[in-house]
């Protein structure tokens, strides 16, 4: 007995500092967290980012507006379509041109497809991190359909670069619309499958309810956006607050949570997928006829068949590609709602064909900065739940 008391007195505990990542499977990329642990409790959490920094802002400043579009694919590489749509919208605002109605609807369709595919990846990986393997496999089945549709649309699956400044690259085919419509009709039943697997699952609820709680005021103060903010009960959605493309012509609801924990953020994103599906359906039904490129010859490339036939068009294309369009001097900020949150582009134009400053306000960057706030004081296992719930992609975070 005395021996035991003796050992208890001399038994010392001390804090342990471990490095989680950058090659940890649950960090969704190359995120490194330096965790100070007291037993299983997280005392301090310091995120380190920048492993994927490619200087996209610097590169954008040295290219024409037309040539910088493919760079935006590489931001959030699992929803590249949404980044393209955000980029072209911001540039159009700077140029002062507007895409034709049909192009706006097409962009809305593809952006919502991108949202579904990104949220599906989020769902799959988030539940996989927490221990459920099955939804991950199902999720990739649906993503594959969207990827195939993208391939049918523009030839690329991941880095699409399909929208263009002033419209979209090519019109959509009836075959594409038919297949998409089949997917749209089928998708709600797939959502029901996921919800049966996850939503009321007791282990899932044990791992997420009451974890990573952040209040509405605090979430706004941190600058959170997207599903991460709406889980705390703030109905801020750029698509509703400052509509772009065709979002003011379709009906959809903005789901919000109440408690601001991981479980509410999960519910919000699940409902967002259903709403995205609803938007696509309305867009297909309302899709107007007409051209898909704006009639703004000073800013948009001439049609390819004319370039091959006509000298003036060839010269015009040559000037636009090499020198870039002549852009009015000024500065513009435009935010769009991508799956992760608000993606903003801020352009400073000095009147030349290249942006003087191209700034990307990346939602993942802001969301990664809130990790210490969510993780500190919790358990180490909840760190994984928190990383999943803020839905970050490091390509966008590091730019």
């Amino acid at each position, binding site marked *: 007995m005395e021996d035991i008391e003796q050992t208890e007195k001399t038994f010392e505990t001390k804090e342990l500092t471990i490095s989680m990542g950058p090659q940890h499977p649950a960090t969704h990329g190359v995120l490194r967290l330096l965790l100070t642990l007291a037993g299983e409790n997280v005392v301090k959490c310091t995120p380190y980012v920048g492993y994927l*920094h490619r200087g996209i802002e*610097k590169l954008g400043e*040295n290219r024409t507006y037309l040539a910088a579009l493919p760079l935006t694919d590489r931001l959030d590489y699992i929803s590249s379509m949404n980044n393209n749509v955000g980029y072209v919208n911001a540039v159009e*605002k700077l140029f*002062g041109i507007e895409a034709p109605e049909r192009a706006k609807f097409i962009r809305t369709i593809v952006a919502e497809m991108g949202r579904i595919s990104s949220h599906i990846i989020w769902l799959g990986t988030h539940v996989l991190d927490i221990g459920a393997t099955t939804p991950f496999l199902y999720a990739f089945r649906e993503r594959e359909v969207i990827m195939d549709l993208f391939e049918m649309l523009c030839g690329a699956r991941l880095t699409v670069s399909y929208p263009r400044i002033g419209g979209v690259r090519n019109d959509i085919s009836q075959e594409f619309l038919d297949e998409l419509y089949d997917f749209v009709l089928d998708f709600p039943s797939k959502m029901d499958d996921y919800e049966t697997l996850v939503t009321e699952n007791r282990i899932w609820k044990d791992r997420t309810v009451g974890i990573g709680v952040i209040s509405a005021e605090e979430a706004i103060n941190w600058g959170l956006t997207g599903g991460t903010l709406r889980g705390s009960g703030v109905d801020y959605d750029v698509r509703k607050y400052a509509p772009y493309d065709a979002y003011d012509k379709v009906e959809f609801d903005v789901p919000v949570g109440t408690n601001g924990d991981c479980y509410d953020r999960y519910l919000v994103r699940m409902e967002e997928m259903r709403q995205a599906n609803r938007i696509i359906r309305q867009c297909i039904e309302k899709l107007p006829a007409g051209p898909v490129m704006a009639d703004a010859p000073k800013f948009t490339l001439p049609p390819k068949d004319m370039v091959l036939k006509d000298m003036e068009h060839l010269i015009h294309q040559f000037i636009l590609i090499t020198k870039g369009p002549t852009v009015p001097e000024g500065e513009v900020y435009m935010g769009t709602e991508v799956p992760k949150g608000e993606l*903003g582009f*801020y352009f400073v134009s000095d009147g030349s064909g290249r942006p*003087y400053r191209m*700034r990307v306000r990346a939602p993942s960057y*802001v969301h990664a900065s809130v990790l210490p706030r969510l993780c500190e004081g919790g358990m180490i296992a909840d760190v994984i739940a928190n990383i999943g719930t803020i839905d970050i992609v490091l390509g966008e975070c590091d730019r």
Partner: protein
Amino acid sequence: MEPIEIAERLKERFPADILHIKEFRGQVSVTLRKDRIVEICRYLHDEPDLSFDYLTDVCGVDYLGKKEKRFEVVYHLYSIRHRHMIRLKAEVSEKDPYIDSVMPVWVGADWHEREAYDLFGIVFKGHRDLRRILMPEDWEGHPLRKDYPVKGPEKEWPGFLDVLERAKRFSEFEWHER
């Protein structure tokens, strides 16, 4: 409230600090002196009918050779309650690259300010943890400055030299037949 009205109100409240107001494509930018930036932000945040509760973005811009003061720190503010936005631009010179941190008003400014420090070399006074964030800690220079070469510096970064050396060492490894 219309953005131009907000700018006028700001001009009334802080007449000495507002330099000029410019509107482009319906967006208003207010250029101001950097000295009272926190006070101005606090006013915009707390005033009930302005209530800029959400800091969208903070970034630096380098106007090398274009403007008298080389840098500008640009703040994009938004009010979720009233749905209006405004852009503040604080001028910072190269000789005195200091500006007060707005972290006391919006804690979300944390990483944006670290990024502006990392990529432009603008120092935010009162920031709790001003370190490089996107570039390695021992990186020299500030990549988003206009006089920084696009292809990077002549000298390789020591961390990369280390990787090269290690790769060379591993490639020299010989498999022995047994």
